[in-house]
């Protein structure tokens, strides 16, 4: 597909959508969002790129092998569950730490569920793109 409108739109939308997907991923704990939606959004950003140009360019932009990304996501999700074992809790119990950050009055709360959610994000992104890219490559 060689549509100038789509290609121009994709150039602007891709970074915006990716940024939005990260915002949605991180804010998910308190407001609507989370790793699953974030991953889907990021996937649609790259799917747009692949439709506007071709899969090759989208893969180049992604830089990472998709199945490796799925593996990384699964590993992160699993590893996040092991932290609680070190304090004697059950697997996957959420642990939270308060980290003081320069320039903020309140300390930032960081927990293992965030790591888990990042794993969800990467897995969803990798899985959806694997499906779309492999299907589309056969078409191309």
């Amino acid at each position: 597909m060689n549509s100038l409108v789509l290609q121009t739109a994709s150039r602007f939308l891709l970074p915006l959508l990716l940024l939005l997907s990260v915002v949605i991923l991180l804010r998910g704990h308190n407001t609507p969002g989370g790793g699953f939606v974030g991953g889907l959004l990021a996937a649609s950003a790259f799917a747009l790129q692949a439709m506007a140009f071709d899969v090759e360019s989208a893969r180049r932009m992604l830089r990472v092998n998709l199945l490796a990304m799925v593996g990384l996501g699964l590993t992160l999700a699993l590893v996040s569950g092991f932290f609680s074992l070190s304090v004697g809790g059950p697997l996957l119990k959420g642990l939270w730490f308060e980290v003081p950050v320069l320039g903020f009055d309140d300390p930032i709360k960081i927990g293992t569920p965030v790591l888990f959610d990042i794993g969800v994000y990467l897995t969803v992104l990798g899985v959806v793109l694997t499906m779309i890219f492999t299907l589309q490559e056969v078409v191309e």
Partner: protein
Amino acid sequence: MMLSLAILALLSVAAPWVCRYAGPARGVVLAAFPLGIGAWFASKIPSVADGGGIVETFAWLPELGLELTFRLDGLGLLFALLVTLIGAGVLLYAGTYMQGHHQIGRFFAYLIGFMTSMLGLVLADNLILLFIFWELTSITSYLLIGFNHDKKESRSGALQALMVTGLGGLAMLAGLVVLAFAAGDLAGVAGGVWNMSELPEGLSGHAHYPWIVALVLAGCLTKSAQFPFYFWLPSAMAAPSLVSAYLHSSTMVKAGVYLIARLHPNLATGTAEGLWEGLLIGFGAATMFVGAYLATRQTLYKRLLAYSTVSSLGVMVMLIGMGHPDAAAAYILAHAMFKGCLFLVAGIVDHEAGEKDVAEIGRLFRAMPATGMAALLAGISMAGVPLAPLAGFVAKEKMIKAGLDAGPLTALLTALIIAAGSFTVFIAIMTGFKPFFGKAQREPKKHAHEAPWPMLAAPVILAVLGIVYALVPALFATPVVTAAGEAIKGGPFEAALRLDAFYYYEISLALGLSLLATLIGVGIYFGRGLWVKATSPFAKLDGVVGPARMYDYAMLGLTKGSWAQTRVLQNGSLQVYIKMTLVAILGMFAWAIWRTGALPSVGTNFERTGLLEWVLIISIAVSAIVATRLGSRLATVAVLGVIGYAVAVVFALYGGPDAAMTQFAVETLIVVIFVLVVYHLPRFAVYSGLAVRMMDLLLAATFGGVMACLVLAAGSQELFAPISAYFNEAAMPETPDGQSAYGRNLVNIILVDFRSVDTLGELVVLGIAAIGVYTLMKLRDDHEGTPVAEREGDEDEREGGNA
């Protein structure tokens, strides 16, 4: 204990890197770990022999009652020592044996992975934990048997082992669950008793006892290659020799024996006529005889040993069933030494002389004296030659004495033991004597020479330990065998065990029978041409109706049955798939209504339906009708997308912003995927006649109506108290207590915290689906004739490099 498992698991993962950087020292480096762990277990011998076990518990999923309970007692100690110490010797051996193999790192990862699973299996106290390790040994064994996967016999041998032990394992899982609940009945625990050390008395009186015995034994007997399931073990000899020595002689095949021994105190009835004992004696004795007999017709080194291992496993099962735990434990330890040694010798002969057939070779002693001495000692031990002070002699005397003390079965069992013993003597001569001292038919294929020290260490040490066992039993044999035997018996022995060989140097019937068996065995050796001719009619019969043949028929039937049902159920027509799914779901509803005899009441609260809702309802309905009338697939997909978006708006209106966002994203991506899939489908056309289309309309309308009623009914009824109040409280309590999830978005917290195990499972499913799509689309040959996979692999590597 848990630490040792963790160390081995990490070592398994790290093995490929160790292999890459340690070079020829890999065997030494890797063997050091199990050796250290084995030394730790050995240091526990005195305290365990005094009755002091070690228990370690870890709350894994306390909500499900799943605890990781590990327990070290006498029986577990015997097997833990075998797994770690023989494992260390085998790793040392493998470092040299596998040198130059292009997948050596992977091999060590599998082998140490197996070691971890086997150690976990013998230390686990929890039944579920035991089953998980049990299956892990099956899987790692599959990978190891099929390691040379470019050979057809490796692949079929691996699959056969997996099928037989896997099916038995499934039966065993059912048996263990029944066992746990039956034990719960007796102990008055509602959720069942899952720790083996807590099983109550009197299980044999429970109504489900026959089921427990049948199902658990199905797992144990297949795993331990008992008659008639023994055939997978000789096929598994396609694995490298050291794998056979380790898995298929010393450890894995004894897992079934281990579990029988472990559950014996709880499942035994106390009399030889009991179901448990009867089955054990029957299967054990049959296996002992058949295995030894079949071995006499073999000439390949490893197959001889494989069939004789089948026979030995039968001996162990039989001895436990006969109520001689001391003899069983003594035999397990002795067998691990002489058979492990001989398997490793078989590997050396193959590696250094290039020979596999013992009928052809001989006089190798001059070229490889150390190997020859080890083989000779192990052979004498295996034969149980009278008055030779070796481990095998002691074990054999105890076995014959057990046979002479079998009540009404004395005559039958003694005859079988002596017959199997004679065959075993013959096998021992063929494997321990003939290759090194016997007459050679021809020169060996390779210029034979002695093996390097890492390959010699384990067989020589095992052979020497066979002497130590019988001459200085107090050093290790007596405490280990006593502790293990008492664990099998479920109580202390009345008299101290005698494992010193000289104790058995007396004129007795047992010694006389042992001498008789030896003479018959030597006789068969000299008349082996005649023997093979005389038994060939039985071999022909075995080829027609033998167990291995039955397995082939069963596999063939499975394939044919799968084809037949696939042709009916999955004939490739998407319409048929959907129709069948809908009809099946409707059928289930109909069944539920018929069972309960009542239609669910449907709520009719339509007050909140305002203008916006009506717009949505009408647009969904119109889109649905339009979708069925369009003549193009792409247009249909787009219209379906409209329905999806409308549903997302409904979510947003009714306070589900998370669901709405997800629905929008999913709907968009589904349209994209649909468009890509449509490309592969043939041009759209209508082939169905009017009648078929009317039937479809009826089916679709019924299904839609039923689903709508169901949703309305679900919304108007409250079967359980809503859990949302608890979630709210746990997510952000008024007073933080350190336990809360610190979040306000309940949907997300449920996903990543409260029910994160579910999410993890779903992620794994997603990953598998992605791999499925990838393989389906990529592993087809493309039109140019080069496999797509090949190009893809290169590309992946490049990308991986960038990452």
